[in-house]
């Protein structure tokens, strides 16, 4: 009887956490729409961005629910072929992709609709790592690590060649985080980390000048009208926000100086609009989403689900912190979006997919 009560209590807790995660995603998506609206309100610019983001959100929420309601055993069964399809997308965009801002990371199947395969590849990649780990790790941890390294290289190298170094860093760093939370030995992890850094440096060498310029802009002697321009605009936008922010529609820096204010610079743009205090609720919502997903991960009985849900939480945390750190002038510009907030259908729907799949993994034990 007590066991039954405990089980129903756990199930209720899991359900409420899952709903909280879904609601938090929707709230963050709506916050994103508001943020995009505020980047364009004064300049009477193209209102397309806001309209499109609302459409992406309206697609993203059902996508989350559908991915949630698909039983996790389906993901387990079809995870590898789906990941291979995602990998094919990431590779083929190198040849048939449409270059935007110097990066050929998008397909344009129909006029005006662009799809960024690397955003949809992220959940598939995490699923693939979890499935490979489950299959190989019981026999040999080193073999499992090697297989995961190959998978990570397969995803991150083509993305780095686009060149989208920000996403490549996400793929590589997520491998280390995945291995760490999977319980991999620390010495092996250290060795793997060193190997990844070496591969990263070799890829960066392909466009060494650009990489050096970007690092110099933050850590070295920045030319404020040259390589330091972008970083300086982040700082000036945040400074103009002060404690309480500028009035809506009075965000001079967002409107006129911040590059890609609706996308790569959306956090700095919000800091100008809402001020230091206004960004705290956003950070709190993102933290809440990550903590809820980690709690869901802890509640999973199955290790594969646990690791997958945990990795999903940390992917959102990692990408958010990278974006915010770039905007706070702590790291060089990477071109990463702020999950669920920045403009972009692929990013928004890809993140919704990830959360939906994580919720499905968290639900899996309930039925067992």
């Amino acid at each position, binding site marked *: 009887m007590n066991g039954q009560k405990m089980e129903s209590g756990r199930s209720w807790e899991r359900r409420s956490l899952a709903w909280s995660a879904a609601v938090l995603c929707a709230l963050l998506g709506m916050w994103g729409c508001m943020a995009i609206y505020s980047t364009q309100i004064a300049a009477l610019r193209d209102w397309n961005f806001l309209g499109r983001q609302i459409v992406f959100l309206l697609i993203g929420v059902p996508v989350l629910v559908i991915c949630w309601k698909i039983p996790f055993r389906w993901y387990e069964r079809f995870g590898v072929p789906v990941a291979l399809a995602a990998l094919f997308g990431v590779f083929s965009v190198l040849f048939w992709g449409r270059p935007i801002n110097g990066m050929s990371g998008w397909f344009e199947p129909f006029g005006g609709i662009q799809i960024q395969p690397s955003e949809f590849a992220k959940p598939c990649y995490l699923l693939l790592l979890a499935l490979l780990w489950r299959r190989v790790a019981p026999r040999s941890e080193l073999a499992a690590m090697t297989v995961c390294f190959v998978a990570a290289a397969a995803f991150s190298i083509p993305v780095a060649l686009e060149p989208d170094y920000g996403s490549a860093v996400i793929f590589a760093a997520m491998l280390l*985080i995945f291995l*760490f*939370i*999977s*319980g991999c030995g620390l010495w092996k992890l250290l060795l793997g980390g060193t190997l990844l850094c070496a591969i990263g440096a070799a890829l960066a060498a392909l466009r060494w000048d650009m990489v050096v310029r970007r690092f110099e802009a933050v850590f070295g002697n920045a030319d*404020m009208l040259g390589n330091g321009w972008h970083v*300086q605009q982040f*700082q*000036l936008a*945040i*400074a*103009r*926000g*002060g*404690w309480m922010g500028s009035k809506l529609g009075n965000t*001079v*820096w967002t*409107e*006129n*100086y911040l590059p890609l204010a609706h996308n790569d610079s959306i956090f700095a743009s919000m*800091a100008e609009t809402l*001020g*230091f205090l206004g*960004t705290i609720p956003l*950070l709190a919502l993102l*933290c809440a989403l*990550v*903590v809820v997903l*980690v709690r869901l*991960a*802890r509640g999973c009985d199955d*290790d594969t689900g*646990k*690791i997958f849900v*945990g990795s999903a939480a*940390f992917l959102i*945390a*990692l990408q958010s*912190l990278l974006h*915010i*750190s770039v905007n*706070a*002038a*702590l790291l060089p510009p990477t071109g990463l979006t702020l999950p669920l907030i920045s403009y972009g259908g692929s990013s928004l729907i890809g993140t919704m997919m990830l959360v939906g799949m994580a919720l499905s993994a968290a639900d899996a034990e309930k039925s067992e």
Partner: protein
Amino acid sequence: MRNRIGLRMNIMLGLFGLWLLAVLVSLFNIGIFQRDEYLRRGDDIAVRQFFIPPQRGRIFDKKRTVLAWSERYFDLTVDAGAAESGEWPAIRESLAGVLPNIPEKPAAKDSSAKNIVLFRGVPVDALSQLKTPLGRFHSLRIQPRVERRVYDDPAVRRLIGEVANYDNCLTGVSGVEQQYDRTLSGVAEIYEITVDKYGNEILSTRKVLQKPRAGYPVVLPFTLEDILKANRE
């Protein structure tokens, strides 16, 4: 194994928490602690101060005949760099239907000059037609110019004296113009605007720092005829 996963997830959460703390410290530093320094840097980039010279007062004789007055003209200029660049043919083409005699190869009188005058005294009706080329080519500018006119007689001119033009601000250097310079001068309007990264004014950012006042008129205690008569004698 299960405990290890839970523990490591907690460690990861802790590490991300520390990272978030570092981000908050950086945001606080930029947005609050060093805010004034960053605002000053921003102003250096975006805020431009301008002044509009005041309208110089007119000089009348005893019967209120105007002896000296100011006239405003508009000159079309181009940045010296743009005049030598590959952009020039397109600029010239855009001006062709609006203004006559635009030179094929504009050259500055002084080699160190930043601007080259393309057309002096643009007619008022042509100003509105220039809106399109001015919007398209940021190197083109309309520069206002003020000139002092005096009643066309040598005796009157001698009495009224001369003005010098310093940055479009007229200052009396001889005759009545010098004697009543303070009264005639007025106060310039000083204002600042914020410009975007292309140097265009951002609407609604104009701030007046000094209100303008036109120069007062000066009425001389004799008539024009008296001046002419005195000159003849």
